[in-house]
C-alpha cells in the first residue's frame, strides 16, 4: 500500500451574501478524473440561511484548544477528515467510484497566522463501490476572517485507490444514457426504506459526487455534512457530448441537525468527469411551517 500525500488547501466561504467566485485550480497532473467546477460558479442563495449553529455558552474546551496533536476519534479531526472525503469525491468520484472516510489514524492542528487553521491528517479512505481501502495523508486549511479562499490541490499519484477499473462500466452507462429514447428521471434515492433499485444506483453515486462539491464548499470546523438523499433526478438533453442533469439533493448537517435542500446542475462524461454548472440552495421546507389561519 502506498502512502499518498495530498495537500488540500481548502477555502470555505463564510458569511456569504453575494455570489462568490470559487476558484479551483486544477493540478498539472490531470491523468485522473478532472472533476471540476468552472472558474465562476453562481451560488444564489434564495433563502439566506446561515448554517453555522449558534452555541450558547462555550464551545468545548477541545475546540478552543484544537491545536497540536488531536484525538483522531474526536470531532475536530473527524470534521476535517470528512472534508477530505468531499474533496476526493469532487476530484475522482464517478458513477462507479465513491470515497468514504473509514477512519482517522492521527491528526494535528495549528493556527496559521492571518490564514486560519491547518489540519494535518493521516486517514484511511475507502473506495466504497470496490471496497478497497488506502492510507493517505492530507492537509486541510480552514480560512479565517474575511478572506475568501480558493481550493488548491496538489496530489501525488492516486493509483492504488483508482486502480479499480471502472472505464468499461462508465462508458457503458454513458452510452446508455446518451442513446436513451426518453430522458431519465428518478426520485427518492434511496427511498424511505434505504432501498435503491440496482439500475438507479449509478444515479445515486452521481448525486453523491455532485453533492460533494456543495459539501466541500459549505464545510467549516463547525459542520459535518453527509448527503441524506437524492430527492429528484432530471436528465436534460445531452450537450457537447456531456450528459446533463438537474438534481435536487438533501444534505444532512450533523451539528445543527438540519436537512438542507440544494439544486445542482451538472454535466458528466467519462473523460470529463463531473462538472458543476450551477448550485443553488433552496428554501427551508414549506410543510415545516404552520398553514396560515392557525390559532
Amino acid at each position, binding site marked *: 500500500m502506498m502512502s499518498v500525500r495530498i495537500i488540500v488547501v481548502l477555502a470555505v466561504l463564510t458569511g456569504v451574501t453575494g455570489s462568490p467566485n470559487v476558484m479551483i485550480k486544477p493540478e498539472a497532473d490531470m491523468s485522473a478524473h478532472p472533476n471540476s467546477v468552472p472558474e465562476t460558479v453562481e451560488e444564489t442563495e434564495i433563502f439566506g440561511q446561515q448554517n453555522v*449553529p*449558534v*452555541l*450558547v*455558552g*462555550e*464551545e*468545548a*474546551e*477541545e475546540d478552543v484548544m484544537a491545536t497540536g496533536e488531536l*484525538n483522531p*476519534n*474526536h*470531532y475536530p479531526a473527524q470534521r476535517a477528515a*470528512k472534508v477530505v472525503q468531499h474533496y476526493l469525491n469532487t476530484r475522482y468520484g464517478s458513477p462507479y467510484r465513491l470515497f*468514504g*472516510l473509514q*477512519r482517522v489514524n492521527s491528526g494535528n492542528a495549528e493556527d496559521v497566522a492571518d490564514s486560519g487553521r491547518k489540519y494535518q491528517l493521516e486517514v484511511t479512505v475507502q473506495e*466504497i463501490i470496490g471496497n478497497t481501502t488506502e492510507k493517505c495523508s492530507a492537509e486541510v486549511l480552514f480560512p479565517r476572517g474575511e478572506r475568501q479562499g480558493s481550493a488548491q490541490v496538489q496530489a501525488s499519484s492516486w493509483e492504488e485507490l483508482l486502480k479499480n477499473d471502472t472505464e468499461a462500466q462508465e462508458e457503458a452507462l454513458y452510452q446508455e444514457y446518451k442513446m436513451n429514447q426518453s430522458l431519465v428521471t428518478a*426520485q*427518492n434515492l*434511496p*427511498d*424511505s*426504506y*434505504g*432501498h435503491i433499485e440496482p439500475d438507479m444506483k449509478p444515479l445515486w453515486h452521481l448525486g453523491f459526487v455532485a453533492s460533494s462539491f456543495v459539501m466541500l464548499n459549505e464545510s467549516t470546523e463547525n459542520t459535518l455534512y*453527509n*448527503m*441524506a*438523499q437524492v*430527492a429528484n433526478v432530471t436528465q436534460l438533453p445531452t450537450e457537447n457530448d456531456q450528459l446533463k442533469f438537474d438534481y435536487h439533493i*438533501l444534505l*444532512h448537517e*450533523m*451539528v*445543527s*441537525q*438540519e*436537512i438542507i435542500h440544494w439544486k445542482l446542475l451538472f454535466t458528466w462524461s467519462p473523460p470529463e468527469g463531473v462538472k458543476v454548472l450551477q448550485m443553488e440552495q433552496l428554501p*427551508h*421546507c414549506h*410543510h*415545516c*411551517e*404552520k398553514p396560515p389561519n*392557525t*390559532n
Partner: protein
Amino acid sequence: DYYKYHPMPEISNWMVQMAKDHPDVVSIVEYGQTYEKRVIKLLKIGVNTGEKKKAIWMDCGIHAREWIAPAFCQYFVRQILEAYKTDSKMGEMMKNIDFYVTPVLNVDGYIYSWTNETTRLWRKNRSPGTSSCNCYGTDLNRNFNANWGTIGVESDCCSNIYCGTQAVSEPEAQAVTYFVGSRREDFLCFLTIHSYGQLLLVPYGHPNSTAPNYKELMDVGLAAADAIRKVHGKSYTVGTSPAVLYPNSGSSRDWARMQGIPLAYTFELRDDGTFGFELPEDQIKPTCEEAYSGALHIITYAHDKAFNGAVATATALVFSLGFKLVSETAFILICC
C-alpha cells in the same frame, strides 16, 4: 419480520402480541400521552416476583427519522425473550430485574415521518410552535431538565434543535421524566437509542460537566464497543458528546445520569453517513445484532454490579470444586 421497518400501527399490534404470547413476563404499561393525544407505551419484561425490582430502561425513536432505533427495540425484546428460555444468565437477570422498553417514544413524529417521502426526515415532535413562530416541533432530546437551554440548542422554533419553551415543556419528555423519575432508585441503567454515527455517548453533553463515575462509564462503554466490534467488525466510538460529536444540553441521557442512574448511554447506531437515516433494510439484522451485544454488555455489568457479591463467590466455589473433581477423576482414568 424483525428485519423490516414497521409503521406505528404494526408496532402497537406487535406489543399487544408480545404481551399475549408471554403473559407471565411481559406486560404493557401506558405512561404518557403525546401532543396529539396518542398513548405512549412500554413493554415491562421480567419475572413477576411480587417484590419491587431493580430495572433497566431502554427507549427508541425519540427522533422520528431514526427508524433503525425502533427496529432495534423490537429486536431487543425478541432476543431477551428467547434467551430467557435457554440462557441461564438471562434467566437470572429476568428474575432480578425488570426491563422497561419503549419501542417508539416520539409517536407523533414517527407517524409523521411515515406520511410520505417529503416527511421522512422529520426529527422533532409535533407540538406547534409559539404564536410568534411559524414552525412545528420541539427536539425532545434537548427538552429534558438537564442544563436545559444552555448549549447546543437553538431558540428559533424552526430549528431542528429547538429546545422548547421551557425544560420538560413537551408531554413526551414529561412522560419519561415522571415515570423514570418516580422510580429512579430502581434504575440501574438508562439506554436511549438513536442513529446515525456509530457512537456510544456518555454523560454529560455540557463540556464543563464531568460525570462522577466518568471512568466507569468509559470503561464499560469501551468494553461494550469491543463487544460490538466482535460481531461484524464495526467500530463505535466511545466518549462524551462534546468530545466526540458536539456539545448539547437537555438530553434524556444527561437527565437520567443527574437522577442518579449510574449507567446512562446514548447509542448512535449505523451507519457512518453513507445512507444515514435511510439505512437499507438489509442492514437491520447486522445492526441489531451488534447493538444487542453492546447493550447486553452494559446491562450485564449493571446487573452483576448490583447482584454480584454472594452469587459470584458461590459460583466460583462451585466451579473450583467441580474442576477439582473432574481433574482428579481424569488423573485416575488416565494413569491406570
